[in-house]
């Protein structure tokens, strides 16, 4: 932890300039991953750029139904935003699973995404919901689907000088519902061994017209299971469709084997979690 240099710029441009000046510079949002890694000696820190003093990263707004969530907004604040929670309950619930109240007050969705843990809870939920990340860098801004940010455990696709400015959620489609569920070995304060985000849209007759299923913690990065989505589309999301979707989820898993869950267990549970999440999503879609 020696020679840490701390900067707290007030604008995205200043933050980008600082990040571009040092290829080892790190963004500091809530610090609930970064400071823990720093203390355990996992990370040698040089320059850290605190982004919680930048208004754009700390505000939530909606425009024509589409949401822009500042990358450093805390989970607690997202959870207190009733309109956001009404539109995207699955995403907000996933963010709310991150740590206890003391962690919630600081931890951000941007940090959860950029920490690039395979088990990050908000990521499968955001992917299923079709969220994008707005990235600012020395060459201006670009917007990518959130699944393109983490590339392997602990690594992102961000280039030197780049940072995530905001997470964007699309306008809520009519009769769409989404949900996220995870399996943890303990009842609280644990890391997912499987996480499943499901989003589905129905037509007026209750037939599924669009779906997206994303799994966390079963591979080095989030897995989008196209076959699971296909199993739902064109059906009434009945038992047979759910069975097929669950099987597709299990087939898509490439999990690790560790003391917290064997490969066999994680693979089986992925289908179970996806099925339960799909049922919640279905319920929500019917009432939207």
């Amino acid at each position, binding site marked *: 932890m020696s020679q*840490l240099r*701390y900067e707290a710029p007030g604008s995205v441009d200043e933050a980008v300039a600082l990040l571009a000046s040092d290829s080892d510079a790190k963004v500091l949002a809530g610090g609930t991953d970064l*400071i823990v890694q720093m203390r*355990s000696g996992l990370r040698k820190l040089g320059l850290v750029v605190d982004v919680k003093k930048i208004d754009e990263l700390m505000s939530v707004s909606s425009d024509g139904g589409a949401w822009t969530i500042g990358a450093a907004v805390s989970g607690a604040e997202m959870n207190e935003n009733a309109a956001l929670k009404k539109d995207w309950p699955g995403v907000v619930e996933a963010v709310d699973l991150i*740590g*206890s*109240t003391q*962690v919630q007050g600081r931890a951000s969705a941007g940090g959860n995404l950029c920490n690039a843990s395979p088990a990050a809870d908000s990521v499968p939920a955001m992917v299923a919901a079709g969220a994008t990340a707005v990235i600012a860098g020395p060459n201006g801004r670009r917007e990518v689907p959130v699944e393109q940010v983490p590339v392997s455990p602990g690594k992102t696709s961000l280039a030197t000088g780049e940072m995530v400015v905001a997470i964007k959620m699309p306008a809520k489609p009519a009769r769409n519902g989404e949900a996220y569920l995870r399996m943890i070995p303990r009842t609280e*304060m644990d890391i997912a061994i499987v996480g499943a985000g499901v989003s589905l849209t129905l037509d007026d007759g209750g037939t599924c017209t669009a779906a997206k299923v994303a799994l966390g913690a079963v591979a080095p990065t989030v897995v989008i299971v196209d076959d699971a989505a296909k199993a739902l589309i064109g059906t009434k999301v009945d038992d047979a469709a759910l069975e097929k979707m669950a099987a597709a989820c299990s087939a898509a898993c490439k999990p690790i084997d560790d003391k917290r869950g064997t490969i066999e267990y994680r693979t089986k549970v992925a289908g179970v979690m996806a099925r339960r999440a799909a049922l919640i999503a279905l319920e929500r879609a019917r009432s939207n």
Partner: protein
Amino acid sequence: MPTVSMTVNGKAVSGEVESRTLLVQFIREHLELTGTHVGCDTSQCGACVVHVNGEVAKSCTMLAVQAEGANVTTIEGLANGDDLHPMQEAFRNNHGLQCGFCTPGMVMTAVDLANKNKNPSEQQIREGLEGNICRCTGYHNIVKSVAEGARNMGG
């Protein structure tokens, strides 16, 4: 070395710190307020919980410089002179502590919980304390303490 200024328990304080200095180190070592404890180095135990701008935070998981300009309350800021805060009183009455190491963090979390929910159920209290670990009590008397403290804070 950077200078950091903040309000702690209602008093304006400032000090020279290294950038890497944790908020809990600033509180314990610079301000000599040793009621806030450090029980782990993985942000798990909750012994270090303080309030920062009205939100609970683990002071081991913040840099002192991140609290620049903030309003911080530690366990020492709860009592009014010799009069214990109702939550502290409730922990005393209900034998909500044994060795006492986790207690400052438990009480700070409990006060926040009661501020947000005047009449928490047992389940809500247990969930609300998920970020605080106690090695002694088995939690039973802590839960009783928080329920009574919350009632007395509301009244």
